[in-house]
């Protein structure tokens, strides 16, 4: 019962934040509502028992990535967005397309066969402690982990090269 109540509270906060992201005109307001979405998603991860993922969600997503976003918005002094003819076309094309997408997804969720749809999740369902995740990460997923570090290195170099002034 508690699980259900908490789920609905934070799911509502999550969806409200996502809708606010779309409704706001100013990028800073959008960024702050995205932080709300990420915070409530972290609570949902905690409800599912994924405490490591919840902590990483707060630290990396709501912390590092969103600070980067807010920093760039402030740096570029981004104002309110302007709407032209093309954005009106996107509205007329995009809203029905997304409506169809939502209908398809909900249909496939409610009409799926097998045991998946009716399954329920207990609070703290996955039971993965940080120790278990670390063991898995450094044994079964060691190669992807190392490849990821190379990816991060390339991303750092790419960011430095791209953001540098072009007066070489």
């Amino acid at each position: 019962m508690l699980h259900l109540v908490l789920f609905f509270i934070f799911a509502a906060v999550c969806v409200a934040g996502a809708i606010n992201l779309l409704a706001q005109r100013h990028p800073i307001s959008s960024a702050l509502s995205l932080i709300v979405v990420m915070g409530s998603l972290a609570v949902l991860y905690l409800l599912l028992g994924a405490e490591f993922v919840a902590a990483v969600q707060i630290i990396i997503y709501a912390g590092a990535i969103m600070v980067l976003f807010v920093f760039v918005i402030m740096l570029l002094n981004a104002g309110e967005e302007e709407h032209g003819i093309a954005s009106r076309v996107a509205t007329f094309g995009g809203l029905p397309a997304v409506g169809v997408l939502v209908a398809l997804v909900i249909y496939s969720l409610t009409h799926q066969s097998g045991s998946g749809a009716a399954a329920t999740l207990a609070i703290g369902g996955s039971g993965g402690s940080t120790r278990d995740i670390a063991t898995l990460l450094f044994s079964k997923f060691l190669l992807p982990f190392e490849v990821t570090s190379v990816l991060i290195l390339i991303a750092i170099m790419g960011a430095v090269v791209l953001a540098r002034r072009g007066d070489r």
Partner: protein
Amino acid sequence: MVPLSYYLGLSAVLFCLGVLGFLLKRNIVTIFMSIELMLNAVNLTFVAFAAHLKNLDGQIFVFFVMVVAAAEAAVGLAIIIAVFRTRETLNVDRVNLLKL
């Protein structure tokens, strides 16, 4: 006890809102944030299925998705800064040099 389909439904709604933002917003930074929203929705699916299947692989994949998202944000925001420096705008409708 929450049904698995509730989590999947929430994730689907968040993903569709991300798609909607990607299609409707004109500010390139906000479009980027919509992509982050879609990645978060997928992460919720991973964690829900990890809890459902009692298998931690899903949580490891969330970790990898976060790493890729961080790399993407760093490179993407660098591209945005480079675009702003040359075009003096963040509106994607005005960045149309490659259009016919």
